């Protein structure tokens, strides 16, 4: 068996172990070590085992990960979700489907200070689901709206997935964040359009809520200044050169902590919950990084990325055809794997291919994270579908899945637009940097 085929077999073995229930990090690490051992003997494997864990976490740039995680955890405990929802609702609640569109808007804004899809779904869902239920919204529409809206937190900066992609491909995290802004807003608009179309076809799904007068709207607007200030400081600070993305994460973490403190929501119980969430999430992410480092040692040794590039060149396929195939592969994989694992497993393999085909790595990052978003709402293991189910007692998985199709279609349209018009992602960073 040639080295490249061994690499391909290793890739398949990782997938088999993952489907057997092994944690993704352990599967990648175990196959990485075994593969390297097979190719280079025990001395080689011992070297990788001794050095990869240290080197995979040591770089200063990796400090951005726990700090953005902390920012999201504290933001979700700062009681800001209710204010965000109330403000948008005061402007849109009275139109048919307005509460659902409000939910999408609240998810997008919350994603701007959170960066975690699951936290966005859980936090906004706790506020939005009872409101939509009280106004007689169809359970399928309301739950699917929260599940889909939560995916916006993955792309709208600051995004932990974009940080990890940036670290893997050595792309500028600042450029990735700026590039994600327009596609993120486009995603929110397409979701809103999906709601408008769905409610237009069946108006009974979403009755109108009460109208708020302008005095009430202005009063509510005054309550969301913390979100605006935090987002503007973190993203604006990077753009203005006040601090690096790594430092911005620290500013975001401290800022979100202070907001939670000032809101009076930071009790002993929420502090313990925050510590548990931070420890669990960062422990998981860092061990995946270790597992990915072990696997990538093996993968690079096999020369599989170069082998794939050679195969594509020999097949004479147009770059755009190859990219469509890559995206279909991602959509299928996303049905069964979580976004972060998918990115850590595949980006080291496919980013060189994308680069060789002439695609911009910043654009590729936005596209990959957009596809990962789709994976969060596609059955059977779209994580957001499960999280939203937990926000309302009695909600079944079937009810959520019934309403999700229009949002998946909206995502596919966004993907097609990104593919057809790369400037959607590349124009803003090009103009700013």
């Amino acid at each position, binding site marked *: 068996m040639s080295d490249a085929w061994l690499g391909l077999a290793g890739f398949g073995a990782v997938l088999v172990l993952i489907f057997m229930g*092994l944690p993704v990090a352990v599967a990648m690490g175990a196959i990485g070590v075994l593969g390297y051992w097979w190719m280079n003997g025990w001395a080689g494997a011992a070297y990788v085992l*001794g050095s990869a864990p240290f080197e995979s976490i040591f770089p200063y740039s990796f400090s951005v990960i726990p700090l953005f995680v902390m920012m999201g955890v504290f933001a979700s405990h700062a009681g800001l979700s209710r204010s965000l929802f109330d403000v948008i609702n005061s402007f849109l609640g009275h139109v048919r489907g307005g509460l659902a569109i409000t939910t999408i808007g609240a998810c997008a804004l919350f994603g701007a200070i959170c960066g975690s899809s699951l936290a966005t779904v859980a936090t906004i869902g706790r506020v939005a689901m009872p409101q939509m239920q009280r106004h007689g919204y169809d359970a399928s529409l309301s739950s699917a709206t929260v599940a889909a809206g939560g995916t916006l937190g993955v792309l709208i900066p600051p995004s932990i997935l974009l940080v990890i992609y940036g670290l893997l491909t050595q792309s500028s995290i600042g450029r990735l964040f700026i590039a994600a802004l327009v596609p993120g807003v486009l995603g929110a608009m397409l979701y809103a359009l999906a709601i408008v179309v769905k409610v237009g076809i069946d108006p009974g799904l979403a009755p109108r809520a009460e109208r708020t007068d302008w005095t009430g709207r202005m009063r509510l607007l005054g309550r969301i200044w913390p979100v605006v200030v935090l987002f503007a400081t973190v993203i604006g600070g990077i753009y203005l050169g006040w601090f690096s993305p790594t430092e911005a994460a620290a500013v975001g973490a401290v800022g979100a902590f202070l907001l939670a403190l000032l809101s009076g929501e930071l009790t002993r119980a929420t502090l313990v919950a925050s510590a548990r969430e931070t420890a669990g999430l960062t422990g998981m992410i860092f061990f995946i990084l270790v597992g990915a480092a072990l696997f990538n040692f093996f993968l690079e040794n096999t020369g599989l990325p170069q082998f794939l590039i050679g195969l594509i060149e020999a097949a004479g396929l147009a770059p755009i055809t190859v990219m469509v195939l890559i995206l279909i592969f991602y959509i299928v994989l996303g049905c069964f794997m979580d976004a972060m694992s998918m990115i850590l497993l595949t980006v080291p393999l496919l980013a060189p291919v994308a680069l060789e085909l002439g695609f911009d790595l910043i654009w590729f990052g936005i596209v990959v994270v957009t596809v990962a978003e789709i994976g969060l709402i596609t059955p059977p293991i779209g994580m957001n579908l499960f999280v939203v189910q937990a926000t309302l007692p009695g909600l079944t998985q079937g009810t959520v899945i019934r309403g999700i199709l229009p949002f998946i279609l909206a995502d596919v349209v966004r993907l097609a637009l990104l593919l057809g018009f790369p400037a959607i992602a590349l124009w803003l960073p090009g103009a700013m940097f």
Partner: protein
Amino acid sequence: MTTLTLWLRRLVWVLAVVGVLAYSAAAVVTVADILGRRIGLPIDGVVDLVQLFVVAGAWLVMPFAFMTGAHVGVDFVVNALSRRARRTLNLISAVVAFVLVALMLWQGVATFVVRAAYGDKSQQLGIPISWFWYPLLIGLAAALVGVVLGLQTVWRAGHENE
């Protein structure tokens, strides 16, 4: 739950809290440096400090992630199997994780001894490289405990669900 198990769980939780405090220290030091730079009082060696805090935090929270089953995986295939098959796969999963972490610890100690002998130091503050390795070794050793405690939690939950 035996007293030993209870104490081991507490130990893993304490390490996680120390880890999160280390992250917090990294955030505070960074913000203090940003503010300090504005008034001409930057913190010397901030990169070294942040690196040390984050490396320490990352390794000290890892046992907690193992203990609480925070590691992501695909479980819809496993959940469709019989209880006996699920328990077997859980055991295989834990054994593979235990062996992998044990190998990393074993070779980590060997690499640590070599690098510490060279007397390497960080670039800005001259922090001995060993300080960056201690949390790694402690974290990996405690992660072995975390793997076992995690398996115990999964088996107990499976037993209660029957």
